[in-house]
């Protein structure tokens, strides 16, 4: 009858799974991943475009969607007042953040990995004839699909951390969208020398590196890229943990 880490994780799973919005957002994320993968596979071609690139072209939209899911999970504690009940039950506080991250991250990883495989299968089925088809056994294909799931799982954790950090749904979603979608565009406006140096390290670019079949110029190596993205997530989580622990709820 004592408080346990497993208990707190089970509680966070209950919170996560008992909201209709969780299932809707997750379904939308998978749909975006598969639908955009199919559309791109059927109609696009270009220099160096592989069937994996096409199949995973929905990743950036799916990232936004799972990130929003995480952000809502984190921020809604504050916007609904639930945080008072939550922290009265778990006064040490930090286990709540770790459990929330674990639940959102693993749920997104599992569903998005499945979505990536589905997108690849569906995309391969409708692939246009200008692009060479690939199989799961080809070099880097499994890594790219699994990497997409890992990246999206980390994005969900980033969302949770931002939600707990800023305590507002709108604020957390705005920051998330800014980091993933707007920052890369802004970096392109910088002088070339600076832009080329920092672009590979921007969150979405670093995270996407793991999904590239071959390492292009000006990008990080697959696992190095994912590690850089994980670094952003860890820093944000640390900031969220600090605020959660140190300030009045």
């Amino acid at each position, binding site marked *: *009858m*004592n*408080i*346990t880490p497993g*208990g*707190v994780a*089970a*509680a*966070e799973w*209950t*919170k996560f799974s*008992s*909201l*209709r*919005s969780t299932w809707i957002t997750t379904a939308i994320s998978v749909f975006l991943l598969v639908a955009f993968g199919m559309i791109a596979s059927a109609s696009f071609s270009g220099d160096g475009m592989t069937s994996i690139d096409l199949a995973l072209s929905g990743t950036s939209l799916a990232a936004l969607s799972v990130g929003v899911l995480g952000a809502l999970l984190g921020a*809604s504690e504050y916007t*609904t*007042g*639930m945080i*008072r*009940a*939550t*922290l*009265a*039950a*778990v*006064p*040490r506080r930090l286990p709540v953040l770790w459990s929330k991250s674990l639940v959102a991250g693993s749920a997104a990883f599992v569903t998005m990995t499945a979505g990536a495989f589905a997108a690849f299968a569906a995309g391969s089925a409708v692939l246009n004839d200008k692009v060479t088809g690939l199989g799961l056994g080809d070099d880097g294909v499994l890594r790219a699909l699994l990497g997409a799931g890992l990246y999206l799982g980390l994005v969900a954790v980033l969302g949770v951390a931002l939600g707990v950090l800023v305590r507002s749904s709108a604020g957390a979603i705005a920051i998330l969208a800014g980091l993933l979608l707007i920052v890369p565009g802004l970096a392109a406006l910088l002088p070339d020398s600076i832009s080329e140096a920092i672009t590979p390290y921007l969150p979405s670019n670093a995270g996407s590196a793991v999904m590239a079949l071959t390492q292009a110029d000006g990008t990080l190596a697959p696992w190095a890229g994912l590690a850089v993205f994980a670094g952003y997530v860890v820093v944000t989580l640390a900031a969220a943990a600090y605020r959660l622990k140190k300030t*009045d*709820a």
Partner: protein
Amino acid sequence: MVPGYQRRPESADCGTTIPAWREPSVVSMIQVREVTKRYGAKTVVDHLSFTAKPGQVTGFLGPNGAGKSTTMRMIVGLDAPTSGDVLVNGKPYASSKAPLREIGALLEAKAAHPGRTAVSHLLALARTHGISRSRVDEVLGLVGLSDVAHKRVGAFSLGMGQRLGIAATLLGDPAVVMLDEPVNGLDPEGVLWVRNLLTGLAAEGRTVMLSSHLMSEVSLIADHLVIIGRGKLLADTTVADFVTAEGVRVVTPAPDALRTTIAGPGVTVTSTGAEELLVAGTSARKIGLAAAARGIPLFELTPQNASLEEAFMDLTRHAVEYEASR
């Protein structure tokens, strides 16, 4: 395994048995010790000390903005005191291995996600402590929400929200129950129900504390009163003492003779009319005996049980934070 909280059918033996849910050696109480809370330059709670003891209902009173909610938030560690400390059952709340067993706190009705059902909300809290699903159903039954257990909280009325909040406080079968304005939004039947529930919990040996800005709500159930205004302690007393503190009205044809007769340390006499005196600091019995011994006739000798409400208003008059202009 914790035996579930049962409402007792009869209260005849209340308080005479040691509750099975608690080791008799464990202290169940709330101790607030020299607590101060400042937000910037504003001091919301100012060197406040009091104790809520087991087996009784402690009413926590004060005008709006007196610092009641802030104090209660500090008791469960939601806010950290600027200085001083709070002990729940003899230790800081955060150090407890099973916080929901120590204290069940209702801080505001709206502390649930509107998209979740009542069952899911309670289950999410229960799972942190490994509390069973059957206990969740049990507390839902206790507060009368079984029928709407699978309805979303967003559709609940204020009163239903309060009941859900009270259900959450009972989940861990806690030694201390603390409620912030629990009867807000409840209908008369609900108010009566809360009253019976809280006195029942106290009779089982638990510490019960509830806040209110209305004396009339609290006076019917509280044994002990802690009254604050602008964050400062104004009174820490029993309900009985708080009422009798007003004094005794005496009507006599010889007020000056009576004055000298009953004068003594701690006794204050105020003249309220040609033949009327208001005497504080002694009892009607002593005044009567003293007057008889000196042969002073008395026409009237009335303990002034000014209503609790009046006494409360009187006490907090100078500590009202937001006052309507007159």
